[in-house]
């Protein structure tokens, strides 16, 4: 067990959820969405977000129905032990891939904007060590960190985006409702993927002080993320316009090159932005690292599992460095997430619910027979 007593409040869990999601999705959010359907990406984002709120509430419902149970225990009661073992193992692999992808992109961005000559290995390794330190300290430290960092990240970020809006042209959001419903449906998976990450909360569910509040907190959390994404989407689109957006690799970062901070000590806000950015992505890397630590501990039935955080570092390090370049990274992740995210964010939870329903049915039958 971890050093702390391992219970976090719903507020802290919601913060973990929000920060995990934003870190995964923020990077190429507007670019991906406007590809194909232009300004109507906003509607795709809204529809995808509302759909995700439903999916997240589903996960919250599972947590509520299995209070205090770990993800592995939930899987075991639902599908018997061997299958649970396989699913949990695949889940670890999935988390590993997402984490490695995040770390790689994180390293590339830091290298691009801050440390052009520093080897990416150093950038990746140093952040991994700190993420391992966070994982060692367990869920309580993570929950507190999430709640502490949330205003530290959000307040300056919102101010910066508002500054960006000053010189933007809101008419760039026009025209709307030009895409056919079919085109809209085609973009929906992209919108859904930008909310990937909420499924990891399943693993943290066991540490929730009030599991009965889980559905509500999951829905509010994803709703907050949706609101934040909409603000980002509107700002970026109104600054760049669809045509220019198509050319930018990291539009969210490029926004800040257009912001003027008149009369301040900082000329380019990029420095401040990079610090915030490091915080945001770390708050995705850290929780997913912890997810793996906890799950591996469960799988191997370890009593003390916090030390599992450290052996994961070299594995993550190697996996993150496998793709040869940024293009390959994105291509690989694109094809991977196409299958993995629906399976783990939708498929497994629905199966758990079905099995819950069946067992309930059986239980009722037995009850009525008796």
């Amino acid at each position, binding site marked *: 067990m971890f050093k702390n007593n391992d219970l976090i409040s719903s507020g802290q869990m919601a913060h973990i959820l929000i920060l995990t999601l934003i870190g995964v999705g923020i990077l190429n959010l507007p670019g991906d969405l406007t590809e194909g359907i232009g300004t109507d990406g906003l509607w795709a984002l809204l529809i995808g977000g509302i759909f995700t709120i439903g999916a997240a509430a589903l996960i919250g419902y599972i947590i509520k129905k299995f209070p205090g149970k770990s993800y592995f225990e939930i899987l075991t009661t639902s599908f018997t032990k061997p299958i649970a073992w396989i699913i949990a193992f695949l889940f670890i692999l999935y988390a590993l891939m997402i984490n490695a992808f995040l770390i790689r992109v994180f390293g590339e961005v830091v290298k*691009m*904007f*801050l*440390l*052009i*000559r*520093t*080897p990416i290995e*150093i950038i990746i*390794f*140093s952040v991994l*060590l700190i993420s391992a330190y966070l994982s060692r300290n367990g869920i309580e430290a993570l929950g507190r960190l999430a709640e502490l960092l949330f205003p530290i990240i959000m307040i300056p970020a919102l101010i910066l985006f508002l500054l960006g809006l000053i010189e933007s042209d809101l*008419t*760039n959001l*026009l*025209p709307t409702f*030009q895409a056919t419903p079919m085109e809209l449906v085609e973009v929906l998976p992209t919108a859904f993927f930008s909310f990937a990450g909420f499924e990891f909360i399943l693993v943290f569910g066991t540490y929730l002080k009030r599991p009965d509040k889980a559905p509500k907190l999951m829905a509010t959390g994803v709703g907050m993320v949706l609101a934040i994404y909409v603000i980002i989407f509107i700002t970026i689109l109104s*600054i*760049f*316009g669809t*045509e*220019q957006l*198509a*050319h930018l690799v990291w539009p969210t970062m*490029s926004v800040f*090159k*257009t912001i*003027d901070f008149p009369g301040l000590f900082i000329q*380019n806000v990029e420095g401040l932005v990079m610090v915030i950015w490091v915080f945001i992505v770390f708050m995705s890397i850290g929780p997913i690292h912890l997810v793996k630590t906890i799950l591996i501990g469960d799988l191997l039935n370890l009593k003390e599992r916090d*030390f599992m955080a*450290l052996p994961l570092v070299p594995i993550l390090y190697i996996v993150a460095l496998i793709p040869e370049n940024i293009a390959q990274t994105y291509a690989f992740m694109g094809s991977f997430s196409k299958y993995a995210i629906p399976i783990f964010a939708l498929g497994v939870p629905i199966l758990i619910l079905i099995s819950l329903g069946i067992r309930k049915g059986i239980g009722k039958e037995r009850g009525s027979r008796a």
Partner: protein
Amino acid sequence: MLKKSSIILMLIVFLSNFLVGCWDKVEIEDRAYALAIAVDINDEAPDEEDELLLTFAIPNNAAIAGEADEFNILFSSTGTNGYAIMRRLGTRMNNELYLGHLKAVIISDEVARRPKLFREILDAMEKDPLISRKIYIALTEGKARKVLEVESELEPLTPRYIREIFEGDRVTNRAPLLDLNDIFYKLHRNGNSIITRLTPGETDVKAGGGGVIKDFQLTGWLEEEEIRGLMYLRDEITFGGYELDYKNYRVPVEITESKTSYRLIEEDGNISIIVDVTTEGDVRQFYFDPQETLLEHEILEALETMFEEAIEDNIYLAISALQEEHEVDLAGLDKYIHKYHPSIWQKIKDDYEDVFPEIDIVVNVDANIRRIGLTK
């Protein structure tokens, strides 16, 4: 036990970083800050491999510290692209060129007339993470290096002088003062834009007029009056003035506010756009001890009519330049049609280049004079 040894391992790994680290560390005084770049064609080999001649304006540290008089140091080299040239310059310079403080890029018309070269340079600027999107980019007739060679008496550091011309200009509207982000935005849309023209003088630089970029290529120039009309069309006027001639009194009017809006009318496939301009202005000068008083309604009305006509003439001047001379829509009417009339846009977007000169543009100006100064 495991905890302690793992901490020690982490420490060793971490501390060993310090022994090799600091890849990006370059002390602040060991960098050569390229504050402005002039892009020219290499006259000695205009059509060969090393067609580009870049001139970097670097501030003299000693002069800033007050120990020398020469503020600007210019370094030039030739090559095929900017980065090759920077590497070549590295063989001659003690410090490394650094683009993080770049303020302005001046491109000669010769370069801008070659679309391939021009696009390469623009992309280099967009790709570089150090170059801010807030820098200024300008065209010049003749050699761009000449602009950097100007020694201004107002501001010894020429690149700063150029930047301040762009930033400080609040009294004229004779040049489109666009920054890199605006230009990228326009060029990404349809490859058309207008870029400020800088003309070097003896001890100063003039920003007036602009180069017409059509399909990533410089095709001609718009003169200062045409630029003003264009800015009215684009709803970018916030200042400037006109000189009216009322009964032999020369009356300068200063614009204080202006708003432009469009209406589109489609009849039998013919598109006509009505441009409504609402402007407010102040009378700045009339006549010392005049016979008439400006407080009389008729005089002001007459002045307002003249004001409206002056603006209308100005805008039509710009429209004819765009539609007849250059045949390129720099006014952003395509953007308007796209955003507000997407169905019409779908029909015309593929051959908009041919459609634009045929569009019937009608200008309606409503000008008001609000203030007359301290005397009647």
